[in-house]
């Protein structure tokens, strides 16, 4: 849970520098509750925001929830649908992993109390500390001085390191990086985002067939 705090502070601070208000930032954190997608969205945020671009990127980043939800399904089958749908709102990498381990240990039924005890503190930490980040963000001033702007790519690299599953699984990332980098140099605007994301996903699709 403490691991959430610096992520949330960096996200909130960056979001406020991008012009989101101190209410909008915790609203995003609380309604969306998906760190990776929020970092991507804030990195791409403009005034006004490219709605479709941000929503499409959010969908891509969070598509793995489909897999996670499917894996969780057997151990929440005993819950009434209404409760299961509520519990899934709070599913993040951490609550999913702990819930799955606990559910498989205890006769393949996840206890709602255990799950809530894991998920709710994580949720509250995320919302509260993004709000605090949004409040202190404007006082940081020009972030490109001193190298403060490097904090944001650093968070992304930490998230990528956390997703690392070997060189083969990471090859599509390299495709994305190269295509996005080249597109960014040649084409003005945010076109590098769909170009990089789509080419990487296409590479993953292609490579999964040959291996």
């Amino acid at each position, binding site marked *: 849970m403490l691991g959430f705090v610096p992520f949330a502070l960096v996200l909130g601070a960056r979001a406020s520098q991008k012009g989101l208000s101190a209410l909008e930032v915790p609203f995003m954190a609380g309604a969306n509750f998906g760190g990776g997608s929020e970092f991507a969205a804030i990195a791409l945020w403009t005034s006004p*925001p490219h709605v479709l671009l941000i929503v499409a990127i959010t*969908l891509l980043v969070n598509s793995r929830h489909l897999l996670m939800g499917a894996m*969780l399904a057997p151990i929440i089958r005993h819950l009434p649908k209404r409760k299961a749908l509520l519990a899934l709102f709070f599913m993040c990498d951490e609550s999913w992993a702990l819930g799955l381990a606990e559910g498989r240990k205890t006769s393949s039924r996840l206890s709602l109390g255990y799950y809530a005890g894991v998920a709710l503190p994580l949720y509250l930490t995320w919302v509260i500390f993004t709000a605090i980040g949004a409040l202190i963000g404007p006082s940081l001033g020009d972030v490109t001085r001193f190298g403060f702007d490097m904090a944001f790519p650093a968070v992304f690299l930490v998230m990528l390191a956390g997703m690392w599953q070997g060189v083969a*699984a990471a090859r599509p990332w390299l495709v994305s990086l190269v295509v996005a980098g080249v597109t960014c140099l040649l084409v003005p605007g945010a076109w590098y985002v769909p170009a990089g994301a789509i080419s990487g996903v296409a590479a*993953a*699709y292609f490579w999964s067939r040959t291996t």
Partner: protein
Amino acid sequence: MNAMNVLTIVLMASVTYLTRIGGYLFLRDRNLSPRAKAVMESAPGCVLITVIAPSFVTGQVADLIALAVTAVAATRLSMLPTVLIAIATAGVLRSVAG
């Protein structure tokens, strides 16, 4: 609150919630193909690296070195020390490069 910001956040939250309940509602009795799994597992990384790609092509040698140092730090350290190293490296290298 700004209307466009709120609209974007509401739409983001909606698609995110659909991904959360979609697997439980529609995929629970199905076996996903290995290919679908591979795509879903690599997609978030593809998007994250894409979003920070512009900082790799600024043409500033100081930034490139700082990113390389940060990438190495990210594989070995947790988030807070990595961020501090990133900020310090970029700050020092940029002032050296002028």
